[in-house]
C-alpha cells in the first residue's frame, strides 16, 4: 500500500511540475527538460564538416570527445545569427550521444506547472508541432517547451545515420 502511494505521488509531481532550462533564440523563449542538459559552455569555433546541413556548425573537442554542434537559430530560421559574447552552447545528453546546440543566451531554470502548459495550435512554422510539448505562460512571457530529444534525433536533422 505504501508503495502504491509513493508511486502515485511521483506520477503526480511529474505531472504537476518539471524543471526546464529556458533560453532565447532571437525574440523567442524556449524551454527544454533540464535533465537532458549536460553543461553550458561559451561558444567556440567548431571544425566545419563539408556537405553537412547549414545548421550543423561542425564538431568541437569536448574534453577528448568529438561533439557535433547544431545552431538551433539556423534550424528555426531566426533572422540574425551572430556570434557574440552571450552566444552559448548547451551540451545535451541524449540517449548515448552528446550533442551541442547553439542559442543566443540562456535565461533561467524554472519550474513549470503542468496546468500552465497549453497545447500548441497547428500552424505553419519552421518546426513541426510534434516537437513542441506545449506553450507555457510564465508571468508575461510565453515559453515554448521543446521536445529536444525527438527534435535532434529526427531524420531531417541529419545527426544520425
Amino acid at each position: 500500500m505504501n508503495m502504491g502511494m509513493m508511486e502515485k505521488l511521483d506520477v503526480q509531481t511529474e505531472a504537476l511540475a518539471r524543471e526546464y532550462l529556458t533560453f532565447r533564440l532571437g525574440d523567442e523563449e524556449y524551454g527544454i527538460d533540464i535533465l537532458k542538459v549536460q553543461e553550458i559552455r561559451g561558444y567556440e569555433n567548431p571544425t566545419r564538416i563539408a556537405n553537412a546541413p547549414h545548421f550543423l556548425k561542425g564538431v568541437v573537442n569536448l574534453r577528448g570527445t568529438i561533439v557535433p554542434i547544431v545552431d538551433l537559430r539556423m534550424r528555426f530560421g531566426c533572422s540574425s545569427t551572430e556570434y557574440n559574447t552571450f552566444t552559448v552552447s548547451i551540451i545535451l545528453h541524449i540517449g548515448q550521444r552528446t550533442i551541442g546546440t547553439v542559442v543566443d543566451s540562456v535565461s533561467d531554470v524554472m519550474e513549470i506547472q503542468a496546468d500552465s502548459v497549453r497545447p500548441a495550435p497547428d500552424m505553419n512554422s519552421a518546426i513541426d508541432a510534434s516537437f513542441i510539448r506545449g506553450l507555457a505562460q510564465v508571468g508575461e512571457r510565453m515559453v515554448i517547451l521543446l521536445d529536444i530529444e525527438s527534435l535532434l534525433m529526427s531524420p531531417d536533422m541529419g545527426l544520425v545515420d
Partner: protein
Amino acid sequence: MAETSTDSSSAAAGIDLSQFYQVFFEEAGENLEQMEQQLLELDVTAADDEELNAIFRCAHSIKGGAATFGFADVAELTHQMETLLDKLRRHELTPTAPMVDVLLQSGDALKAMLARHQGSGGSLVDTTELLFNIRAMVSGEVPPVVTAAPAQAAAPVASNGGADQAAATEGQRTVELRVGPLGDPDVADNLIDLFKEITDLGQIEPLPELDHLPSVRRFKVSTSTAESEMMDLFTFHVAREQVKFVAFGQAEHASAASAADPGYGFFEAVGDGAATAAAQGDAAKHEPGYGFFDNAPGAPENKAQVALHVAAAAVAQPAVAKPVAKADKPQAAGLEASTLRVSVEKVDQLINLVGELVITQAMLAQNSRSLDPVVYQQLVSGLTDLDRNTRDLQEAVMSIRMIPMSTVFSRFPRMLRDLANKLGKKVELVTQGEATELDKGLVEKITDPLTHLVRNSCDHGVEMPADRLAKGKPEVGTITLAASHQGGSIVIEVRDDGRGLSREKLLSKAREKGIDAPDTMTDSEVWGLIFAPGFSTADEVTDVSGRGVGMDVVKKNITSLGGTVEIDSAEGYGMRVAVRLPLTLAIMDGMSVGVGEEVYILPLSSVVESFQVSTEMIKTVGGSGRVVEVRDEYMPVIELEKVFEVPRFDWEHNSGIMVVVEAESGRVAVLVDELLGQQQVVVKNLESNYRKVNDVSGATIMGDGRVALILDVASLVRRSRH
C-alpha cells in the same frame, strides 16, 4: 556441526561462489582451448604420456570447478571425458581417431554449456549421445567397469533400504572412505556435497567415527566410479594423502591393489557384516542429516582392523601438514603469478587518458616553441623530457592491448581438420609468425575474414587427394598462415598450394554476371574480380562455400579496418591472399595538410610522396577531369578544396602542393595548400556522437585543442574513379 553439513552447499552456491563464477568461466574457457589444442596435436599412433596427462588435467580442472560451482551438466560430461582420458593415460585403452573426435565434440558441447550458464542464452545442450559414445568407448575394449550410474544418488540416502539398493545396482560396489586425520573434521562434509552435486558419482553416507582414530571421518560410498577418479575430485577439498579407500570385504583384492597403487590409498578388509550393519543403523537413526558423528553409537570393529587402521594412519601422517594440495598444476600456478587479468575497459580508459596526455603535451610543445631557449632553458629541457616520457608511456600502454596472432591462428587447426574431413581432403596447416602482435580490437575483427579465407583455400584451393597425386603434387595439401610486421602495418598471408585461380574462368564468369571484363585486364585486376558481390567460381555450391557471399564481405570488413587485401595466384600452383592491416586502430601517424584555413590529416602510411606543382603541370581530360604527370605516369588530381568546399578568403593564393596517396592499389594526387607536419594522432570516432562523413575516416584533436578530420584515402581514390 549438523547444520554446517546440511547447509554448506546451498549457502556456498547462493552467496559466496557467485562472485567467482567469472573466474571459473574464464579458466574453464582457457582449459577447453588448451585441451582442444592438445587433442589436435595428439598423434594417435604414438601418444605421448605427457600429452595425455595434460589433456586429462584440463578436463579434470574443468570438472572440479564445475562441481564446486554446481554446474552438474558440465561436471557430468567432463567426468565421462575424464573416465575415457584416464583409461588412455593408463594405457588401458589405446587412443583412436574416433576418440579424439568424440572428445573434441565434447569440448564443443562444454563450450555451449558454459556459454549457457554464463547467461548468453542458447538452448539446452543435449549430451545424451556424446555420453553414450564415450561410455561405449570406455567399456568397448575393457570390461564394463563404468556403467551409466542411475541418477538415484541425488536423493538423500533412503532410510533403511539404502545400502541394499545401492549394492543391488549393477556394476556398483561399496567401499569405505576414510578421510583424515583432519585438523577440522568439517572439511570432510564438503565431500558429501560433492556427491550431491555430481549425481553420477554415487551415494555417500557417513559412518560413525572410531575411538582409536580421532579426527578421521568415515563414509560408506556406493559407487561405480574408480577410486582414482574420486580421489581426483576429492583433492579439491582434502589432500590426496588424507583420503583412503577401504573395501567392504574382499581382502585379497584390496591388499593387492594397495601394493600396486600406493599413491592412491589403502584398501583394507573390513568385516562386511559388521560395518554394513553399523552403517544401516546409523543411516536409520540420522536419516535427514549427515552429521552427528561424535556421539554416534560406537561401531563394532574387530582388533585386526584397528591395527591396520593405525598403520594406515601412520603412513598418512607425514603428509598431513600439507595444505590442500593441487600438486598437478605447478605450471599453471607459475603462470598466474606473472600475469594479471584486467578488464579491457580499464585498459581502454588508460589508453584514452594517455591520448589526452599526448594532446596536452603537443599543445605545450607548440606553445613553447616561441620561447627563447636561452632564457627558459630549464622549462624547454623539461618539456623535451616530457615529450620523450609521454611517447614511451604511450607505447607501453598501447602494448598492453597487443595480443599475439597465435590467439587467432589457434582456432584454425580444429576448423581445418573438421573441414578437410568433411570434404574428404587432406590438408596440413602451417602457421608462421604466431608471436606477431596485433591490437586486440583488430584481432577480434580480423578473425572472421581470416576464417573465410582459410575455408576458401581448403574448399576451392586444395584439390582432392587423387587429383593432387595425378598432378604430381604431394597428396596432402598445405595451407600456410603467416603473420609479419612490415613497417607500420601487419601482413597476414593465407597461402595454399592448391589449384590457384583460373584467369579464363574468372573472366567468363565475370561476363556472365554482366561485369565489364576486357581481355586486356591485368592479372591483379582479374584476381580482384572475386571480391565482386555474388561472385563465385565454384562449380557447385557446397555448404562450406561457393555462394559468392563472402569475399566481398571479407574485403569490406578489412577495408573498414583500414586494411587492404592483395591476391597473387598461379594456376595449378596455388594462391596467396595477403591482408595488410594497421597495427592499431587507436593511434596512427598522420601528415597534417592545410587547405585554406582548415587542417586535414592524411594517414602517413598511405602517403607516397609530395611535390610542388605549377598550374601548367595539371592537365585536363574531357574538360573537367584533371590529371598530373608524375614520373611518366598520369594520375587523377583531387582538389581537397573542392571536395570539402573549403571557403577561401585569400583569392590570390593558389594551392601548390601535390601529395600522392595510395590505397587499394590505386593512386591519386591530392592538391593542398601546404604541408604542416607529421605527428602521431589519436583517432577519434565521429560516429559515436555524429554520423559517418563522406571521405572522412575519423577525427583527431590537434595540439591547439581543435578538431581535425582524418581523410579516408580509400574513399578519395574511389572518388577519382567516378
